[in-house]
């Protein structure tokens, strides 16, 4: 297309020059040349209104699943609340551990046994337990809309750490009863031993809870 156009244009341009001896009264009509770039044919649009896979509207409609969408929405709401409550639980448990240490120092570390931290520690532990149960409930009862690929992943590590933390919390309840019995019996030696175990289990539980939270970073 282009060579033809150029050759024709050259001829038409040369003809009057070759015939330059012609008198003025024989003027040729003025030439008008128009170049067309062949790279972009006329009529080519950039419309995206095509489907190279040939799907019909009915096929596209059939691909969606509103019931599944509802379950997903429910799960998202529950797990977002789970996330907020989980972080709150970790904060409450850390507070309990700090107050517990202060209480331990007060009672067994030569602090005078004032009991200044006893109630605060008790309230914070009850709050931690309540938040922990609420957090776990949201997770356990959240619908599971998609099958997960089997294998060890962040969620598996989270669950293992949370199971450990749950065991720690249950152990604290058991230790509470045992410690109360020792206190009732006036057994100071056992009381201090249980308090130390309680302290160790408490720190371990907070540690496991921190791991359960922290694994999401990796």
């Amino acid at each position, binding site marked *: *297309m*282009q*060579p*033809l156009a150029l*050759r*024709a244009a*050259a*001829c*038409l341009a*040369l*003809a*009057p020059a*070759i*015939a*330059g*001896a*012609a*008198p003025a009264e024989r003027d040729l009509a003025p030439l008008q040349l128009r170049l067309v770039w062949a*790279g*972009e*044919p006329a*009529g*080519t*649009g*950039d*419309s*995206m209104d*095509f*489907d*190279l*896979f040939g799907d019909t509207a009915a096929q596209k409609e059939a*691909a*969606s*699943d*509103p*019931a*599944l*969408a509802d*379950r*997903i929405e429910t*799960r*998202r709401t529950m*797990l977002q609340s789970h*996330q*907020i409550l989980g*972080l709150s639980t970790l904060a409450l448990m850390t507070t309990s551990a700090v107050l517990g240490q202060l209480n331990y120092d007060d009672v067994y570390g030569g602090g005078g046994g004032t009991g200044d931290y006893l109630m605060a520690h008790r309230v914070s532990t009850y709050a931690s337990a309540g938040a922990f149960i609420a957090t776990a409930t949201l997770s356990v009862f959240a619908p*599971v*809309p*998609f099958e*997960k*690929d*089997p*294998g060890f*992943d*962040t*969620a598996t590590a989270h669950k293992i750490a949370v199971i450990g933390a749950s065991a720690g919390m249950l152990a604290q309840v058991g230790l509470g009863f045992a410690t109360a019995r020792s206190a009732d019996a006036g057994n100071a030696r056992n009381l201090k031993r249980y308090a130390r175990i309680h302290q160790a289990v408490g720190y371990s539980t907070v540690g496991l809870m921190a791991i359960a*939270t922290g694994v*999401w*970073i990796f």
Partner: protein
Amino acid sequence: MDGIPWRKSALVALVALVACSAFASAGAEEAGQAQEAAKVQPARWAGKGRIEYVLVHKLHRVVGATEEPEVALVIDESGLKVMARAKVASFKSGNGNRDAHALEAIDAANHPLVVVKGVAPGFKPPATPGVVKVPLKAQVELKGVTVPRDIEVTLDYRSPDRAEATFSFPESLEAHQVERPSLMMIKVEDALEIRGKLALEREP
């Protein structure tokens, strides 16, 4: 005597025009042959390969990939049309829980496919093997929301029937009305990178 130069000039002009006409005619024939050779035969291509997304969080950099994309190209006189799609559930990031969350975030139940369409008007495949960059006017459909996007694809023509396509372009989650997932109460970045490598084959 006055009339003679005029006739001479006319004769010269006539000879010149005849010569030009022959010249142009030969040119036309030659051009016709060249045009026939350059004419793009309509062809359909199919492809397979790997498409990845790179998602960034302050504490994380996640790469998810699918190796199950469907790709179709049509090259004809008008240029190139391409359509690629993949099931969103086929993207794996190495963490099943995260992938499940991703499906929730992009509403996979109602919009199970991510679809990219593009056109390159006037595109002609190269006559010899080589690398060409193809600017596509494209659109990306995710979560049922279509967003226009300019994408440059590098096509490495290995032979008239085989080529490799590579591409990379930024995409916005919020442009597709995707609520950005958060971790530790910190949302992931809005921009994610989409990249891929596809092996294309001309269909018989």
